[in-house]
């Protein structure tokens, strides 16, 4: 290891062994993948979609009923 392989002016400035600093800093562990939170729009989309279906169904039924009524009156 390069950081350990040369002589130093004094013992005080001589670095600790790399295995020791890695262990201390947690660098010998596999770092877990960072999970990033993304904006979740699925609920809004679901509401919009459901609302649109309901409106469409009401409109369709209204048209059908009105036509039926018109037909009956004639």
């Amino acid at each position, binding site marked *: 290891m390069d950081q*350990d*392989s040369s002589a130093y002016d004094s013992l005080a400035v*001589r670095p600790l*062994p790399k295995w020791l600093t890695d*262990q201390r800093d947690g660098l*010998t*562990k*596999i770092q877990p993948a960072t999970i990033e939170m993304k904006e979740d729009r699925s609920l809004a989309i679901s509401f919009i979609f459901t609302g649109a279906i309901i409106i469409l169904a009401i409109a369709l039924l209204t048209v059908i009923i009105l036509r039926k009524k018109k037909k009956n009156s004639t």
Partner: protein
Amino acid sequence: MRILILAAILSLACTTKVSEWVLLNAPANQYTLIYFYNGQINETARNQNASIGREIKPANIEFRSVEKKDIGQPFYALYYGNRLFRRYNDPKDLIGLTVSPLRKKIASEIMTGKLCVLTYLTTGNKEKDEKGMQIIQKALGDSPFKNIITVVELSRSSVEESHFVSLLLNVEDDLKTIPEPMLFGVFGRFKALEPLLGKGITEENIRLMIDFLTADCSCLIKDNLPGTDILFTNSWDNPTIALVNKILDENPSLLHH
């Protein structure tokens, strides 16, 4: 789906501890002993070399002769990779190069399932040596792994273990110039970690050494194993199951990754 994939990856991760994984899977790196000569090798030297070759063959070392034009007297040089560890002018200096009583004891401790052997290299300065030893004993006394760690003391001036001392002092280039007590963690197939020395021998650093050896062996460690393999004659087949596993099974709170 992402969680499932992550769980699958984690389940495949290695849970073998560093000390055990290195003992079972990491063969010791080879040394090279070179006999440098100029001209012809005489009969006496040839016989001597044959005898040396036979003696060191079971160890992690290769022996060969190389002709070198610019030398007066032949000599032997010990290399670890491309690092020159020591030069020997007399073949008698090679006696006990690959084996010694303390190295046998350390290997035997490792083979019985011990986590590591802390080899304390003393300087002869009583005050410094005793201070370091007190810290080691305090650190181990507080450790749940104290019963599976052996401490051995080795004097820097030991004649019987002079080769072992020399090998330890070559773990890093500047150790020979530092007159401080040193603590080497020896594990696996006689791998010596870069030592804690002088004021670096602290309870916290000893705890970190134990943490390193008891952690799961991640690919990050496997790909870049620290330490230097010490020259030694031993068969590393069929070691006893690592005792660390029993301690961790009984105390899951000690598990760390």
